[in-house]
């Protein structure tokens, strides 16, 4: 499979790092959008770890995913500072709004934008502050138009 060849290259590039597992998993997820379950035996062999250890690490860290996300990954900050300025209402609105859409919604616990919440992150690159339900709808409409 093409995926496995790519994964093999990624693992080969990082396998000599001390404590290489997290950097390897990050690189795979960055390249493929997720960590395919079939990559686990390969990583285990290359890093001389058991498959259980790899699975334990992938399932422990919230950041790692074993299934592909939707077309865009929308993360709403649900930490205390954002909650205090309407983050929960925004998250509730977003859940309803994105139901059945091709966008993935996830909570995130603090983007470090506590002074300008509620905060939202799209695809780990774009940040938005003071997000109201209306602003959220406008952002999602822009994402939908950007197919």
């Amino acid at each position: 499979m093409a995926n496995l060849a790519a994964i093999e290259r990624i693992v080969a590039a990082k396998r000599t790092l001390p404590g290489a597992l997290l950097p390897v998993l990050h690189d795979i997820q960055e390249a493929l959008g997720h960590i395919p379950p079939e990559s686990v035996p390969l990583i285990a062999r290359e890093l001389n770890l058991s498959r259980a250890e790899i699975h334990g690490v992938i399932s422990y860290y919230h950041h790692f995913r074993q299934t592909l996300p939707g077309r865009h990954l929308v993360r709403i900050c649900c930490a205390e500072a954002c909650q205090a300025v309407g983050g929960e209402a925004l998250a509730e609105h977003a859940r309803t709004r994105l139901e059945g859409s091709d966008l993935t919604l996830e909570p995130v616990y603090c983007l470090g934008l506590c002074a300008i919440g509620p905060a939202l992150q799209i695809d780990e690159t774009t940040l938005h502050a003071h997000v109201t339900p209306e602003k959220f709808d406008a952002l999602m409409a822009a994402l939908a138009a950007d197919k």
Partner: protein
Amino acid sequence: MKARVYVPRDAAALALGADAVAVAIAAEAARRGIDIQVVRNGSRGMFWLEPLIEVATPRGRIAYGPVAASDVRSLFAAGCMSGGVHRLYLGATDALPWLKRQQRLACRHIGVVDPRSLDDYLADGGGEGLRRARGMAPAGIVAQVTDAGLRGRGGAAFPVGIKWQTVLDAPTSPDCAQKYIVCNADEGDSGTFSDRLLMEGDPFSLLEGMAIAGLAVGATRGYIYVRSEYPHAIEALNAALVGGRDWLGDQAGNFAIEVRKGAGSYVCGEETALLESLEGRRGIVRAKPPLPAVSGLFGQPTVINNVITLASVPGILARGRISTVALAAVARAVPCLSSWPATSSTVVWLKCLSALRCASCCTTSAVARVRAGRCARCRSAAHWAPTCPSRNSTRCSTTRRSLP
């Protein structure tokens, strides 16, 4: 020389549309045939004014904010390049009331320099601490940090010098003679983002602090463990590592720093869980002892400090022993103190919950005034004595009386 326009690249400014503003400014300047350099600096911290743009003029840096991309045309029409008055005009940045009363030490370069430019950092006084540390014995560096009274800024306030001394004294195992400096940048608590502000606005201070720690304890490898929720901080640190490679190599020899990305585990902010994560395992806390200082990363003696703690170190080394010792007691009294006095002759205003007391004239005040390390009222060499067990009461160290 091109006129410099500063548009922050801090994540908070980006969330408020700073990228669009930077693009609009470059486009408008090109349209008007003005030769400018758009510098993407860190944030000054005034988020209610972000994106806060600054224009370098002969009168100093003039601030405008909060600027939207749609304001840019009218700003240029009002002559913002020469500090012209506009609806968003705020005046000289340094004279803004919120900034004017601050003395920044750990945060002194943030918002002032271009975080991607080593030249900017060095021109603003950076690098001096590392330069001095190079000429000192490891024990001398540790002693200076201990004398300065620097405490861990991650919240536990453990004396940094004691931690470093433990690592300096720790023997390495014969099969792997390696000590480590680990920077804990897994800043997860909501409402705290000073580490992010520093990493994005002044990454070179952190690198310099880590290099000094390396010289102090004899470590040659450093790791910065940054949480995955901070992609912009990771980008800034990696850019600084590329830009500062020759400088670090020249100043700190074989000290190598690597940025490692966390993966959304809040527990990894705890130091031993962080070390587990760095080693490639689940972030589960270790039993202590042994302390990380004795057996830390890969079982080796490890200094693990918070971002602001390490970034405070260059300032302590650069200022030398006298000024730091004179004010160490004052600083110890105020764990929340975010800025250290720039020089020993500076007037320091400390607002703190616990009163401070001059040992000679017994002046006590919620606001203690110290000038050149002396009490402002009786001019004696002030011996501020904050040996407070409860944090809310302060005792005078000479009379040993408790204050009301």
